[in-house]
């Protein structure tokens, strides 16, 4: 039983950063932005989370810094892709590499280390025990005692779903992606909507980053987002941006990650670490098969 609980918890832990970043990606997807900068925003968030938590000995400030760090990346994206009208793909790639360079540079300048920084002075984001529920056997072990950001991710899923489909902003958001000229002619600036979607995306990616460096592990490692931003991009594409779909698919990716850990008894760890990436390929495979069938019918 404890193995299963462990696997489910592992699944939730590995799904959370992907879910948060993909929710951000969902907003920009609906706004019609080819946003591939989630990786960089997450990485920047992870670094600044450690910076804030280390210097102020407080995790809320860590989270705040994470969001600001990701927001900084979003502002660069806005400057180049929206204001200067540069190709979104090139901006995204450039920004991801900018984030990688900046965080390694700052790691060296601020903490005077190369590769990774960890210290007992970094305050991690706490786990939350929910009264009453925590006493229920099995379910209590899963529903209660998770990291605060896991619960935030859950709230974010509902919030983004609501925002996308039930609010005026969501309508404009989808209009900006669907037909921006008609949105512009109706008197709403499509660019403004796009900027807001990027800002919200940064907020969510910042949280994802904070979860990486203050949640699972306490500390920052060079390039620690390790393709999670790309996986979240794949998740967004697979479900055409639908937040509920994103939640399910993130859990699926989380499950494969947990499966990888489970397989570590019989396989070298290098192979089990490949599992999420292979799973993404498999998911894309089924997605394109389904797409092909729909087109031929």
């Amino acid at each position, binding site marked *: 039983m404890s193995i299963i609980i462990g696997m489910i918890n592992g699944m939730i832990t590995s799904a959370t950063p992907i879910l948060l970043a993909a929710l951000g990606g969902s907003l920009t997807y609906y706004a019609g932005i080819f946003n591939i900068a989630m990786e960089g925003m997450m990485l920047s968030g992870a670094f600044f989370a450690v910076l804030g938590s280390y210097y102020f000995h407080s995790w809320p400030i860590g989270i705040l810094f994470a969001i600001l760090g990701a927001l900084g990346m979003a502002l*660069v994206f806005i400057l*180049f892709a929206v204001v*200067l*009208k*540069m*190709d979104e*793909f*090139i*901006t995204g*790639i*450039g*920004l991801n*590499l*900018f984030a*990688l*360079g*900046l965080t*390694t*540079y700052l*790691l*060296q*300048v601020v903490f005077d280390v190369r590769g990774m920084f960890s210290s007992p002075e970094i305050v991690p984001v706490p786990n939350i025990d929910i009264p009453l529920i925590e006493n229920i056997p099995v379910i209590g072990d899963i529903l209660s005692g998770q990291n605060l950001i896991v619960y935030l991710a859950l709230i974010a899923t509902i919030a983004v779903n609501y925002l996308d489909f039930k609010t005026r902003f969501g309508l404009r958001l989808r209009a900006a992606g669907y037909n921006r000229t008609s949105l512009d002619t109706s008197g709403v600036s499509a660019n403004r909507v796009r900027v807001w979607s990027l800002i919200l995306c940064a907020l969510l990616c910042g949280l994802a980053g904070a979860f990486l460096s203050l949640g699972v592990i306490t500390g920052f490692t060079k390039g620690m987002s*390790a*393709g999670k931003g*790309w996986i979240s*991009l*794949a998740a967004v*594409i697979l479900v055409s941006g639908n937040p509920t779909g994103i939640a399910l698919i993130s859990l699926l990716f989380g499950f494969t990650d947990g499966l990888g850990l489970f397989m570590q008894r019989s396989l*070298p760890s*290098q*192979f089990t*670490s*490949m599992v999420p*990436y*292979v799973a*993404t*390929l498999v998911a*894309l*495979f089924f997605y*394109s*098969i389904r*797409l*092909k069938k729909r087109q031929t019918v």
Partner: protein
Amino acid sequence: MRRKILVNVVGVLLAFLLGALVLLIQGYNPLEVYFRLFQYSLAPGKIAYTLSNSVPLVLTGLSASVAFASGAINLGQPGQLLIGGLLATVGGLYLHLPPLLMIPALLILSMIGGALWSGVAAVFKYWFNMSEFITTLMLNMIADYFTYWAITYPFFEKNATYPQTPLISKGGWMPEWGNFNSSILVMLLAFLVIWFIVNRATAGYEWRISGQNSLFSRLGGVNISKNYMMVMLLTGALAGLAGGMVVTAGPHRFIKDIGANYAWDGVMIAMVANTDIILTLVYGIFFGILQTGAVGMELITAVPKELIQVLQAVIVLIVVSGRVYFETLFTKLEARRKLKEMVS
């Protein structure tokens, strides 16, 4: 032409200016830092060394340039480089030939390795219409772990404290004359071949046309899928060759993280060069100068060499956005001029 050079030079200078600002804030003397940077990489005895450092950058840059220009979003250079390097290493461990045969054999092996890895993505696209943009990215991570496994278990050097293979046999080492490594010749040869294919051969013309307007080229009788396949295999082979060069001209063995950031730098080089083959060579060497000089800069002025990574990304963002900005500006001015002529 002159306009093109102007945009690039002004963009690079602007990026350096921004870098200087950052350095000033941190209390360094930017002039000294930049001077040390270029002094270290461009000193008379150092140029050959700097050039050999830019070999993997130029090769991966060419790979990305050809791919992007042909409309194939091959972002798998990191993985292709690793697999190419691994295959060359394995060949170097088990083959024992005279250098004249050994070196070409290893280079071909590395190209096969790279093409194999890009071929996987190409086949995914060809059979299942899976976007190579994401599959190549996923294959990068898989190649990363796969090579890590290969040098930890089957090809591990006994008694080593770090995951690495034993040295490849001497015949496979790229010859070196003083500071001049023959890998530079391989780079120049690859550049000439690619320049010729892209600018003078029918295949290259078809690739570029497909990249610019796929429908037009198909109506003109271009076999899109065949060309796509060829582009993917060729660009994979180029990235694989970069991996082979890194092994045979560098530490002569496969060490963990041997790919460094070469391949992603190559992608940036292609973007900043706007997929122009000659500009790719120029920027590849320029980034090589920056990266080589970074070591000297850190030694003398204590500015961390990671600064260069930031600077490179800033150069890409500024030059590319500058190009877009100036292009719209020039078309606007042109339109205004024509309008005036019509009015008067």
